[in-house]
């Protein structure tokens, strides 16, 4: 029964399988992202961690900040990192797009997820640091950078990274 279902599934066009898998994984992600497990136990720790690293980067750049929970306290500015500013949704979209792609060896998927995930995490730290600096030096542009830089640019980076990964996989396959 399961075998015939799998056979039927395999005969479906690649793009159909990709879109169905993407949609299914996205639903699972949002179910987890808005679950008490994530909101109460994972998100606070993640935000605290991001705030801590951002504070370290800022101190290297010469901006002394203190961290309390998910909030960065500076001399001239207080920035709170909230859920939604953690870069998790954009990172999840990238990871889901990698996982959902059919016909790709799992070692390529894991390499993509690890490298992409780390890159997006680092970029999100730069985003937080950049937002803090814009709040200090260009306060009237803070909201602009928060919305366009934080949401749009970050999503675009995820899409572009995924396209680059797909191309990388294509090259690897051709070389084999």
């Amino acid at each position, binding site marked *: 029964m399961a075998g015939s279902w799998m056979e039927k599934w395999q005969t479906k066009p690649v793009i159909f399988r990709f879109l169905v898998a993407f949609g299914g994984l996205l639903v699972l992600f949002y179910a987890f992202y808005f679950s008490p497990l994530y909101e109460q136990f994972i998100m606070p720790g993640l935000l605290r961690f991001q705030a801590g690293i951002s504070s370290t980067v800022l101190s290297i750049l010469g901006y002394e900040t203190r961290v309390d929970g998910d909030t960065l306290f500076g001399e001239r500015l207080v920035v709170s990192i909230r859920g939604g500013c953690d870069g998790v*949704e954009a990172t999840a979209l990238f990871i889901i797009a990698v996982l959902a792609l059919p016909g790709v060896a799992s070692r390529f998927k894991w390499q993509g997820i690890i490298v992409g995930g780390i890159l997006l995490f680092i970029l999100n730290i730069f985003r937080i640091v950049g937002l803090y600096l814009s709040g200090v030096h260009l306060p009237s542009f803070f909201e602009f950078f928060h*919305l366009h830089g934080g949401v749009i640019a970050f999503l675009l980076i995820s899409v572009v990274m995924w396209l680059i990964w797909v191309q990388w996989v294509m090259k690897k396959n051709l070389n084999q």
Partner: protein
Amino acid sequence: MVPKILKFTLFFLLAYGLSVFLVSKVPGADSIYTLIRNAVGGVVGIALPSAQIESQVFSDPATGKSDVSAMYLVYGNPVLMKKTMEEALASGVTQVTLPTRSISFRLFEMFMVPLLFLVSIFIATPMNHKHRWKGLIWTLLILFVFLLIRCVVISLFSISNDRIGVYELEDSAMKFLQTVISIFSLGFSMSLAFVLWLIFGFRHSVFIDMLQNIFKNQSK
């Protein structure tokens, strides 16, 4: 393929930057907000007929300056509003404050950002024009309907929360609405925009050749 990805990125940034500039700075282009404001007022009014609904341009309480990129949705209990009017007429009062409440929506963030993202990503995607415009119209429609539903849910929560005699929901329903509202965030709207692009745009783009190549190679 690298030049195609680079071209896609640059075209996206150009299209998005230009469209944000057009909507924000070019006189007349902001009339799109009037359209959105009327749509929000109309749809919420139809969805919640037991309440009196009206849309208004947002005005900064501190400066009194109006801001077309945001709006107030003013709502009230029609029975109470009618009663207040009748009492005022009976007592000969010429000016009366109607028992209404309001909620504000930031139209730029709620509507324009995801919609402009979609427009830009479709413009930037290398694909034939017929699929581009057809896909763009469909995705804009679907996303716009979703954003209107989001407004209805937020309005219902707000009306219920104010306990004005209409749509007074029970605690469990309020809790459910609160969860739905927190899920329907900007991030979710953007994810939906991305999924719509995958279905209506990416599928018909030249990027799909990469996927076909991968698959062809696997089945060799």
